[in-house]
């Protein structure tokens, strides 16, 4: 890095509790998470001059400023593509603070996704104004109306080509729940499962997805603060340097409805991200010490493991079964329990866990963590001490 002082770092993380019903507004969850992140960093909300969330978030920078007294924004933006956009936020934040668009950027995601609305319920409305891609139009009249259905439709060719069984998927879920069981912040704290529990759980989308293959829809808020390294030196925490953050999205692909291009057994976008990220960060995802891999559904974990280079195509199930992703393995997977075990705050709670692992302050702390990999399909980031 030509100018190390210029490098972007995550300096603050904050979150609310994760619950079935938060009992307060999404705007309040947003404010609480940001205040917690400011407190963590040793910053005031008055220091924030950049703001970013998902295009799906119901709070905006107006709400943020009006609640927290932030006097002036230099930059604000929203990122598309749902949970796949979670790690994309780090791509934007890195470039924004390193280029000087803003100095202290806050990223948040706050949602009453359990108590007010659930993504997992059938989606039956198509927005004729076409605010987003039109994929729903082609799915809805045929009964493919939920993220689980879209995910299963795109994952089936992979699962069948490599003979991935429901038990193989179940072992991923068992691992997440084992980690969540000893994480007091997790929805499933104290509630590990066995492979038999997974097998007995109800079908959501046969022939592949059971209830325990799905992430845990939750209410909650998460916030992350990014600034430059020279500024980070004066703050409270050991900065998590953003060694690399990359995004790739290829022609004719879609996000969860990625049906129309190429070999469905491969995640072409993720392969491209891995190439760019390895070049940018100077190390590959599998060379890091902790893997925070977006787990909306269990098949997505295997496909990303392979696309991001942890193992060869089709070997993901063995990589898990052989224990490489256990807490004491060579690449521990989501020690917080991931989105399946801790909570589904659209992927953002996996980023805060990555930062805790780097700091050495996590509930299920992995030993000797120097670098952490985080990904959400179309984006990946590596943070380091």
């Amino acid at each position: 890095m030509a100018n190390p002082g210029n490098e972007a770092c995550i300096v603050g993380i904050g979150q609310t509790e994760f619950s079935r019903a938060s009992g307060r507004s999404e705007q309040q969850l947003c404010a609480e998470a940001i205040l917690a992140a400011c407190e963590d960093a040793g910053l005031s909300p008055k220091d924030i001059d950049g703001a970013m969330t998902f295009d799906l978030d119901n709070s905006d920078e107006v709400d943020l400023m009006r609640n927290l007294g932030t006097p002036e924004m230099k930059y604000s933006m929203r990122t598309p593509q749902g949970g796949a956009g979670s790690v994309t936020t780090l791509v934007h934040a890195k470039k924004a603070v390193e280029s000087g668009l803003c100095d202290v950027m806050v990223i948040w995601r706050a949602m009453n996704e359990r108590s007010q609305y659930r993504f997992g319920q059938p989606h039956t409305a198509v927005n004729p104004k076409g605010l987003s891609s039109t994929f729903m139009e082609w799915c809805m009249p045929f009964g493919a109306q939920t993220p689980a259905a879209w995910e299963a439709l795109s994952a089936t060719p992979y699962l069948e080509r490599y003979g991935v069984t429901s038990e193989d998927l179940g072992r991923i879920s068992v691992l997440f729940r084992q980690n969540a069981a000893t994480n007091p912040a997790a929805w499933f704290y104290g509630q590990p499962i066995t492979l038999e529990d997974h097998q007995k759980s109800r079908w959501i989308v046969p022939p592949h997805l059971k209830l325990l293959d799905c992430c845990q829809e939750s209410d909650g808020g998460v916030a992350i603060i990014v600034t430059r390294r020279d500024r980070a030196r004066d703050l409270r925490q050991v900065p998590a340097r953003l060694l690399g953050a990359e995004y790739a999205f290829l022609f004719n692909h879609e996000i969860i409805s990625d049906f129309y291009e190429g070999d469905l057994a491969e995640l072409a976008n993720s392969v491209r991200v891995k190439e760019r990220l390895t070049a940018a960060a100077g190390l590959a995802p599998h060379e890091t010490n902790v893997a925070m891999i977006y787990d909306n559904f269990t098949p997505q974990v295997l496909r990303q493991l392979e696309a991001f280079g942890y193992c060869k195509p089709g070997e993901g199930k063995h990589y898990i079964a052989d224990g490489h992703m256990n807490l004491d393995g060579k690449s521990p997977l989501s020690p917080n329990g991931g989105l399946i075990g801790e909570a589904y705050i659209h992927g953002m709670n996996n980023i805060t866990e990555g930062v805790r692992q780097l700091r050495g302050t996590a509930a299920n702390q992995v030993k000797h963590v120097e670098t952490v990999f985080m990904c959400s399909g179309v984006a990946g980031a590596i943070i380091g001490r």
Partner: protein
Amino acid sequence: MTRISSANPHRPDPVLTIDTAFFWAAADEGRFVAQQCGGCATLWHPPRPVCPKCLSKEKHAHDLSGRGTVMSWIMPVHPPAHGFDAPPIVVLVETEEGLRFVSNVEGIDPRQMKNGLKVEVAFARTKGGHQVPIFVPAEEI
């Protein structure tokens, strides 16, 4: 002879947008079509206002053979699919022309479903009296 299924009288209607209405209008007439570029003759699905290959805005509906192969199949059972009395078999079909469509397969026991199944187009009636293209196992020739 085109078959028309009435198995799901509450099946959701298609939503017509400016760029896609031709597809659903053709289905109402019992035709299974795709967008064909007027500039380079490439077929596209889903439809789009501009051909990404030659950038032409000229296009028309092209009749497809109606034959294809199942690439992926699932059965959403929970939560129940809106508008379906029983869980549908949802498929991703690749047509002979190399285009992919999300659709249904009817007329087969789910226990017999498998990827690679040869299918041919049929149509299903929707709640509001429209028709959408679905598939049935192909007749042995």
